[in-house]
């Protein structure tokens, strides 16, 4: 079920909320668990079994690691099993493709149609973080399996995150409080995310599709990469806003996932602001796990590169994501090297932001391409291989509505108010807040209409 579907808005959400309010606090996690299963089961009942396998495995592994002496063996075993589940469902076909290429036969690919459960990468990583935290004694295992399952399968963050540390949600599930203030904040946040997704991100989807059509011109690709960067931000951050808002309505606090990423002045800063829960996971469990910056300069570079490669591969079983990870890893490495060796002072804000945005945009050519050949064809098209000017099909889609939304998206992506009046942030902020509140409900109403009026676009991160 999709957060923007009417079945969710008018069916699942109000009913769950009503039942949740009526339910005794001590039993709310049971209701939540039931709701989570209904929510996920409606997408694909088979995927529900995979979810339960991951939850069960993480729970048992956590218990054993906590009490047993040979913790490392059990940690490695459970990590291998969890990654095995992820690997089988997400990467088995990719592995077979590579093997087919090596052996020069397509026989291996026949008869393989593997289910890819939505959100698998997210909940497997949640499970990994849980067992790793117990191993490193940062957290204790949850004694109640059903409570653990209700937290691990929490519908708000199950499909597209934010990635959760169970320790941060487990305590909130003991006796979750629902206060009027929280509900109000949650609804507001949910509406904000809903509008970001439906009004802005979905409007750009046909434009992006057309920009990256066959034989795209140079400007098609540049413009497409720009619009796609905005679409991805509003789509994914919209989802995160909805997830955080929904969780608040149910009395649960989820971590933030975005902090105006396009206002970053470097790639390093960008990754501290974009998909923050994944960045934090990769830093904590991969980069530091590998040794971080404690093993010398050269190893630090290697760890950085490996972390970003794993981050890339986490997004999908495709060479394009490996290259995308390498692109980001390479840039992080370069930035670090330039900072350490040349001791260059930080660049001016305008230069830093423009450079960062261009590099992120170019990296997204790997991210959006269905395969590596297509990705390289996009780079070739940038040089004007198929002409320079925008294609007629792209121009056709540049309606006044989209042009206005492009301006709005750019305005909302950057902290203009802070830049324009750094000393008068509070009054302008208040003004913006009041305008925002006055606009929110009519915008929500409009977005509800648009959700059906426009062609439905699934969340971009659903494929991960």
């Amino acid at each position, binding site marked *: 079920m999709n957060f923007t579907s009417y079945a969710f808005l008018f069916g699942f959400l109000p*009913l*769950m909320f009503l039942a949740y309010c009526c339910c005794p606090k001590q039993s709310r996690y049971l209701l939540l668990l039931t709701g989570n299963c209904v929510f996920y089961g409606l997408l694909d009942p088979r995927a529900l079994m995979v979810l339960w396998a991951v939850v069960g495995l993480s729970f048992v592994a956590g218990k054993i690691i906590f009490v047993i002496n040979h913790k490392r063996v059990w940690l490695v075993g459970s990590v291998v099993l969890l990654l095995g589940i992820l690997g089988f469902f997400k990467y088995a076909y990719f592995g077979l493709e590579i093997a087919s290429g090596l052996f020069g036969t397509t026989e291996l690919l026949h008869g393989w149609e593997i289910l890819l459960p939505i959100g698998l990468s997210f909940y497997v990583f949640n499970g990994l973080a849980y067992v790793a935290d117990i191993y490193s004694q940062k957290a204790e295992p949850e004694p109640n399996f059903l409570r653990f399952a209700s937290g691990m399968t929490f519908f708000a963050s199950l499909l597209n995150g934010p990635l959760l540390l169970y320790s941060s949600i487990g305590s909130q599930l003991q006796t979750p409080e629902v206060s009027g203030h929280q509900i109000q904040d949650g609804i507001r946040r949910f509406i904000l995310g809903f509008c970001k997704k439906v009004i802005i991100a979905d409007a750009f989807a046909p434009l992006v599709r057309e920009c990256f059509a066959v034989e795209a011109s140079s400007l098609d690709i540049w413009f497409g990469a720009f619009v796609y960067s905005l679409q991805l931000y509003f789509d994914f951050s919209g989802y995160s806003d909805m997830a955080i808002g929904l969780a608040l309505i149910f009395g649960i606090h989820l971590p933030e996932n975005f902090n105006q990423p396009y206002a970053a002045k470097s790639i390093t800063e960008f990754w501290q602001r974009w998909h923050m829960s994944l960045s934090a996971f990769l830093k904590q469990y991969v980069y530091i796990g590998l040794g971080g910056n404690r093993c010398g300069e050269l190893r630090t570079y290697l760890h950085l590169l490996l972390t970003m490669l794993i981050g890339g591969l986490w997004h999908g079983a495709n060479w394009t994501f490996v290259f995308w990870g390498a692109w980001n890893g390479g840039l992080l490495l370069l930035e670090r090297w330039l900072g350490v060796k040349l001791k260059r002072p930080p660049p001016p804000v305008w230069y830093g932001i423009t450079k960062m945005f261009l590099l992120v945009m170019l990296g997204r050519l790997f991210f959006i391409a269905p395969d590596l050949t297509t990705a390289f064809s996009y780079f070739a098209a940038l040089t004007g291989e198929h002409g320079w000017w925008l294609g*007629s099909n792209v121009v056709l*889609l540049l309606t006044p*509505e989209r042009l206005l939304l492009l301006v709005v998206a750019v305005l909302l992506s950057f902290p203009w108010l802070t830049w324009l009046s750094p000393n008068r942030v509070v009054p302008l902020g208040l003004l913006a807040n009041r305008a925002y509140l006055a606009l929110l409900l009519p915008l929500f109403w409009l977005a509800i209409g648009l959700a059906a009026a426009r*062609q439905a676009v699934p969340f971009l991160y659903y494929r991960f």
Partner: protein
Amino acid sequence: MNKFLNFGFGLTLVIGLFGFLVGQDFTKHPWMVQTIGFANGLRYWLLATADDQVHLGSSGWLFLNQELKLPAEPIRNLETRASAVLSVAKILQARGTELIVVVVPNKSRIYQDQLGFALPKILQHGYSRWVQILGANQIKTVQLEVVFSKAAQQQQVFLKTDTHWNTAGAAIAARAVAQQIKTNNLTRASFVTRSHAAQPYLGDLIHLMGVAQLPPPFRPESELEISTSTKSLAVANQGLLAAPQSQVVLVGTSYSLRSNFGGALEQALGVRVANLAQEGSGFERSIRTFLQDRVLQDHPPKILIWEFAERFLYLPVEDSLSLP
């Protein structure tokens, strides 16, 4: 125990209610229909934007985006379709039927000045390429493009808010088709065409925009359209019962079903026309139905008029385009 029973009962109720609500199609509820309509209406009113299927031209002219969008390999698709027409012509020739091809030119080319958008060059020359291929293979093609371009300087030939031609355009097209057909060996009939009072008309493009139910500021203005209807009086020189029913057959798209084109064609020809056009036929559905019809195989017509819209020529060819 009681607590758990109550909880279980509550849960079952919630899941039951939820199942009921999930099964509902909320988009069909009247209040949702209104909400969706107003969302579209606001986009039109405030931002002069329509659904991606419709392009807003100037002076109230609406165009179907499919006519303006350049698909991949348009000329190759056109040539594949031309080959299909040649194959059909051969089959028909074997049955003793003469084929007349009528391609309705894109409204967007006839009214390019209302587009506010430069049509891709390929789309401007595709029609002549089509006529050239068919002409080289001795297949009769009615060049409605020339006829409409000329007529459009005097009067409106397409509806402003609709994909299709208006009554005047349909009559002009019918006369142009009739000029290509020799009726000497056909049983003649008499027809009378009546004009009805002009009525406000909301075109299919307004419906496609999803704003048809809204008042004018939120949707394009409707236009006045005079409709006509044609009735046969009697078959000349023969009793009505003796008249052969399918000497001339018309297959094609919704164009043949709109604005009394079929009637105007009968009137212009002075011959009865069996109109087998189908709504949403696309390029090939109605001709496929015709070719597969057992009765028409046993009693083939003398003339088959095959109408379709120019925009279908360029669309990607589906696997199913093996007509004969």
